[in-house]
């Protein structure tokens, strides 16, 4: 236990010294970037205090970042700037001459209703705001998914199963079209809930699983490339920009 503790102090000392040296040699921006990168990567070995430091810093700072952005980029221009522009004119003069929109009282009231959650007695009122939010999500998405995912995808899957080109019958394109056609139909059969996957229907469902597995395998293999290039980018930063080992 003691040896472990000693080792961790030694590592801490090395990290601190390296950090100071790096700032002196390479400047603040590159050094902070390099050390935070190393701290995150250290998680691959195991959880450790350096990762914890980076993680906790990231959480606190980013939470405040999005809150500030939400306040200045959404709340001020879209709520106060529309509800009663003079109210925010001292901070954002550009909004001063906007016309007032009384309808913006709706989100204001709903926002306050949601905050009633903080009161133990009137907390149930916050459900009204939740009901509004969930109703909005349900109503908006119903038609949008119907349009772009249901109707449009059916439209895309409609074609001739006998393809010709300039030199006559095109076997390759015909096979491809037949496979897309069969793949979509079998994939849909797989998703059937209320019919037992038996007999011919079961064969369709099994083909559907095969199509889905090819889809997943292919997408997985395809994405590997993009993920590797992210790591290459980081390594170029560490070994090139920071350590200067890549020319």
């Amino acid at each position, binding site marked *: 236990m003691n040896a472990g503790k000693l080792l961790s102090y030694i590592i801490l000392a090395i990290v601190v010294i390296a950090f100071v040296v790096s700032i002196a040699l390479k400047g603040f921006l590159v050094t902070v970037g390099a050390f935070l990168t190393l701290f995150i990567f250290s998680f691959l070995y195991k959880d450790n205090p350096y990762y914890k430091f980076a993680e906790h810093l990231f959480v606190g700072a980013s939470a405040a970042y999005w809150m500030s952005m939400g306040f200045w980029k959404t709340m001020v221009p879209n709520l106060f700037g529309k509800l009663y522009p003079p109210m925010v004119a001292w901070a954002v003069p550009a909004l001063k001459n906007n016309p007032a929109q009384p309808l913006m009282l709706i989100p204001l009231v709903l926002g306050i209703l949601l905050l009633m959650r903080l009161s133990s007695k009137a907390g149930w009122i916050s459900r009204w705001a939740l009901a509004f939010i969930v109703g909005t999500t349900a109503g908006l998405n119903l038609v949008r998914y119907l349009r772009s995912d249901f109707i449009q995808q059916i439209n895309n899957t409609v074609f001739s199963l*006998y393809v010709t080109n300039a030199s006559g019958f095109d076997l390759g394109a015909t096979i491809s079209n037949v496979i897309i056609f069969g793949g979509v139909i079998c994939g849909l059969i797989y*998703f059937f809930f209320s019919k037992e996957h038996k007999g011919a229907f079961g064969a369709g469902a099994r083909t559907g699983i095969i199509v889905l597995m090819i889809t*997943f395998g292919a997408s997985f293999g395809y994405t590997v490339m993009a993920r590797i290039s992210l790591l290459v980018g980081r390594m170029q930063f560490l070994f090139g920009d920071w350590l200067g080992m890549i020319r």
Partner: protein
Amino acid sequence: MKICFNKVAALGMVLLLLAVPYSWLAAQAEPDTLIQDTTVTITGQEHLPRPAQFTFVHDSEGDAGGSITLKWTLSPDDGAGENNVTSYNIFRKASGESEFEKIGTVASGLTEYEDATTTDGVAYSYYILTSSDSVGSKSDISAGVVSSAQWFNSKDLDTFIIGIIICFSVIFFIFWAQKGKKLYLRKIAGLEAVDEAIGRATEMGRPILYIPGILDMDDVQTVAGITILGRVAKTIAEYDTKINMPVSRSIVLTTARETIRQAYVAAGRPDAYSDDMVHYLTDEQFGYVAAVDGIMVREKPATCFYIGAFFAESLIFAETGHSIGAIQIAGTAMPAQLPFFVAACDYTLIGEELFAASAYLSGEPKQLGSLKGQDVGKIIAMVVIVLLCALFTVASLTESEAVLSLANTIRGWFSAS
């Protein structure tokens, strides 16, 4: 009260939806506007391009008003010769005004302009100045056109009808199942495993981690994640297991707390509920990922649920979860992330199964009935695809123009505007 509400709700919806085609029919009575004949006016003297001419000046279809659409035929000099057209300039005059005013320029080769700056109820007339560098020639002046808002977006009639059919089949089967009709439903492995997964955490005395995705309540997948949480939390309450639910959105925090509390109340253990079960981390995608990874390796949950909308973090979660030996049940409708969950988790709810899961877990007939309604939608999709592919195949085999145009007409019904 419960049944009554559903029925009243369905009736109210039907009435509201019926109002739409009615208002569309009412809107059909609007008269057409004719283009007025005037003589061609010419400015400048040399190298004049021949003018473009309007073919269509009309209130824009299916919009909220404030817009007039103009179409014209290209000048014969567009794209050719020394009189080559460089641009079309649109001039407009409102009734009551005396001067035409330039409102926009369109590059040569284009034949359409939408004037989206009109005031409804005012008549506007237009002309096009076909320009070649500094000189130009005017087209005829159009008759006055008034823009207005429509009560129905006629371009969307097909979407509307298909939507009505699917919605009615879902609603029909909800009531059909409520009458106690027997309903077969196939098994979904991931849902069969939920009880076992919670039981395992209970035995091991370790918590359950529930991740509802990284999007807010305005995404349907998050809503699906929360509805499933309601079912899962009830079992958790009954087993008296710990649940840890870090979230990345504040509204999800509130909704999840409400949902879990109600599940505990329903399980008869309201006193066991605590607000600490759900906690907020950060809205930042990778900040959230970093913190959840930390929670996983430190608390070692026995079971992890990832149910909602996920992006690149899907694989980071699944791999970290695997490294701590957790049972992992995932569900998402993000096509790009499904492969990672399928490869790295024990069970995955794929796409449609995610939205059906809450109904499955509830076991209530009316919820299950809606799933049969969904299957009707699938039948519609399959029938349309088979029918149209057959028509197109016949058309290309027989080279029949009639069959092809029939197929194209039907296909036109299935196009999202």
